[in-house]
């Protein structure tokens, strides 16, 4: 098989290029009004998002006695780490971190593999499979089987009670993301695929060695969507996981919000700082997934817009 050569990078800029005119330099120092307005608008919006987040952080570091009396404040005064000490004193948070990591990593892996597979088959336009698979993927966007049938399926047919896969499996195919990926796959140049086939590549090889490497942007995007979904998932855990040692982080947080007594279960005594712990748990819970965004950001716009415009 021959491989597809990358375009040759352009030669270095000739040394004789004229210097930039002085007037052009001046224009750079006077940005367009629209740009200024955009920056102001985006900065303002960013501030609106950042302030509540900061107040959650500040609240988690404010002493419980003041917090319960006066509510949120912009600066943590008096400063207190009691909530974080309480949370990390017991094993509950560590165990739930482990559970959430498992659900997120394994769930995202399975979901990306399943979504990519079904999306590629749909995108290829095979007369005997693509349409039926598209309908199969599309129907759950409109209808669901309902809570009780799903509950019976998971607990009695699949026997997945108290298994993290009871949280993972219901979410491994998101129809919207399937169609985003289908759109992206359809934008793959047919010439490249034809060239590979002429060179003797089978369909699996085309998929693994041509399509997937070309689809990194969209894979990164759907992986991020799935990762965030799995990270934030608590409802299926609430339904199917009853052993506290297997609770994911979000269910621990949800229980904590609904009841003060759960604070005692984090490893300290019944007199744990409840207000503070709720805010500290929020910080602990959202922190790691926020870190995923910078890594995926460079693919984000490209992955979504290519899928959207080339469909």
């Amino acid at each position, binding site marked *: 098989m021959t491989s*597809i050569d990358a375009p040759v990078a352009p030669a270095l800029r000739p040394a004789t290029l004229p210097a930039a005119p002085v007037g052009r330099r001046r224009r750079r120092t006077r940005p367009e009004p629209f740009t200024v307005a955009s920056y102001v608008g985006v900065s303002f919006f960013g501030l609106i998002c950042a302030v509540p987040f900061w107040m959650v952080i500040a609240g988690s570091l404010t002493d419980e006695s003041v917090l319960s009396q006066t509510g949120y404040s912009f600066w943590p005064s008096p400063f207190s780490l009691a909530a974080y000490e309480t949370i990390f004193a017991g094993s509950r948070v560590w165990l739930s971190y482990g559970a959430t990591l498992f659900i997120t990593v394994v769930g995202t892996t399975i979901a990306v593999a399943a979504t990519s597979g079904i999306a590629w088959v749909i995108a290829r336009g095979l007369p005997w499979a693509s349409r039926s698979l598209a309908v199969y993927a599309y129907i759950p966007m409109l209808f669901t089987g309902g809570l009780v049938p799903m509950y019976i399926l998971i607990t009695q047919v699949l026997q997945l009670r108290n298994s993290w896969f009871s949280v993972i499996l219901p979410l491994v195919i998101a129809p919207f993301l399937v169609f985003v990926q289908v759109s992206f796959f359809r934008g793959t140049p047919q010439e490249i695929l034809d060239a590979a086939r002429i060179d003797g590549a089978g369909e699996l090889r085309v998929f693994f060695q041509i399509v997937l*490497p070309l689809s*990194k942007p969209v894979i990164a995007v759907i992986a991020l969507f799935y990762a965030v979904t799995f990270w934030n998932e608590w409802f299926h855990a609430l339904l199917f996981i009853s052993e506290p040692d297997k609770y994911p982080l979000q269910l621990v947080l949800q229980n904590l919000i609904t009841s003060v007594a759960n604070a005692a*279960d984090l490893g300290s005594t019944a007199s744990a700082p409840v207000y503070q712990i709720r805010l500290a748990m929020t910080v602990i819970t959202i922190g790691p997934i926020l870190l995923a965004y910078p890594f995926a950001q460079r693919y984000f716009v490209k992955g979504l817009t290519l899928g959207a415009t080339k469909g």
Partner: protein
Amino acid sequence: MTPILDGAAPARPVSRRSFLAGSGGVLAAAALAACSPGAGSAGTTYDLLLPGDVPAQWDRVRGLVNAKLKADLGFEFSPEFINWTNYSSQALLKFTAGEDFQTALSARWLNIAQLIESQALEPLDDALASGDYPHLVASVNQDAFDANRWPDGAIYGIPAVNSAARIHHHIARGDLVDKYAGGSIENFDQLEKFWYDVVQKEGIPGYINRNSPFDVLGAPTGALYAQGWETPDLLPLYFSSDSLMFVPAQDAATTGSTNAVPFWEHAPYRESLHRVRKYYQDGIINADRLNADPATLKSQFDGGGAATTWGITDGLDTAGHLDQLEKAVPGATLMTLLPFRDGQSTRPHQTFQADNLVVVNAAGADTAAALQLLDWVSIQENHDLLQYGEEGTDWEPVGDDAYEPIGDYANFPGFALSWRIPLERKYSRMSESESSWFEWSKDYNNFTLDPFASFIPDLTEIETEHAQITAAVAEFGNPLFAGAVEVDKGLDKLKKAVDQAGLAKVQDELNRQADAHLAGS
């Protein structure tokens, strides 16, 4: 071989081998993990549903309980704790799915009507009469069983109560009562004056609670319902507690004619709505009643952020607040307030319908074992082990009927399994006032049996109208009960909405059923 991609995005192709290996690994892990933990309970371990949170130190205490349970009865139990917010829907889902857990908590304010209608609950009359469960029968008053019979005459739940009647009241800061009310509050007028003094001089609300019609309308007492502390003889009628309240005629029992009218036609209720509105505007009650959650309010009260909060005569006023309050406000004390005009000689009307019923799942793995468990926890030694933990490690007996917690084990939801009036121990630091009122509440003779005591209306005929009226009450009634809207305008909106929803039909149906009840009793 040259790279496949364009120069801007060089890629390392995913090899088929590594992809397949990765996928295989994930699937193998999936299969292993999926198979191992979900195998369900072992042969002699029975599941139960309990509301609330897993108590601290639960694994250790459960081990002790199971060891004794296995030695005595040959099986173990494995309760599943479901937090309160989700308990009702989760329990209903599990019943609907036909899960084989043994027992659960239910009641009219949960979903017992639906469960009985769908035959999801085991009738218990024959078992209770069989003589096989002597400790259970001996520890629950026959009056309690009789008051909790369903209209078909059957008993579907064991009343898990620790007092004869649960009277809504106030838990007050004793140190503030000393400071502003001379150490005692004997009636509602004094209580109101105390609230205003506290708001003016301490800058904290007088009373905090989440929004509840029972605070305002009373049944028969309500924290903000003044008339209920004068003459606690009115229990409103309703198809469900989140729907519209009706007031029966005062002489219904003698005339046989219920003649129930919507709550706004009862003058003391209208007066109460205006009073609550005034409290709202004056800062006596918390302004966030409509959306405040119980945990936040408890934390606020325990942090010294209010003068009084809601309580019920279940013996948990002091135990639930004192430790944390003392940490936040050194020197603070607690007091249980029931400002009846006639003090403890009052005989409030009661239905004796239990707030908590332990029901046996008809689809349970072994209904006989479920009743054996209920009988087993009706023995003092077993009851104490489950409810207070290991003696000497978790608690010490104080006198004959009290306990002092010395460990972290706490908050077992005995109300969903093991509460029995003769077996309950009092918290050793229970305030004198709470102790007095708690003892008073245990005696059935201190209450008057309401003529509608065993009346449980059936909403089959008016389900649609009832649902629409419930929605109207949620939209227009709740702001009224919170004091958040002007009373006359709010009532006009509520009346209009419930009229359109079918008030007349619902009212007629309620009166028809209530009259039939009076005729049959």
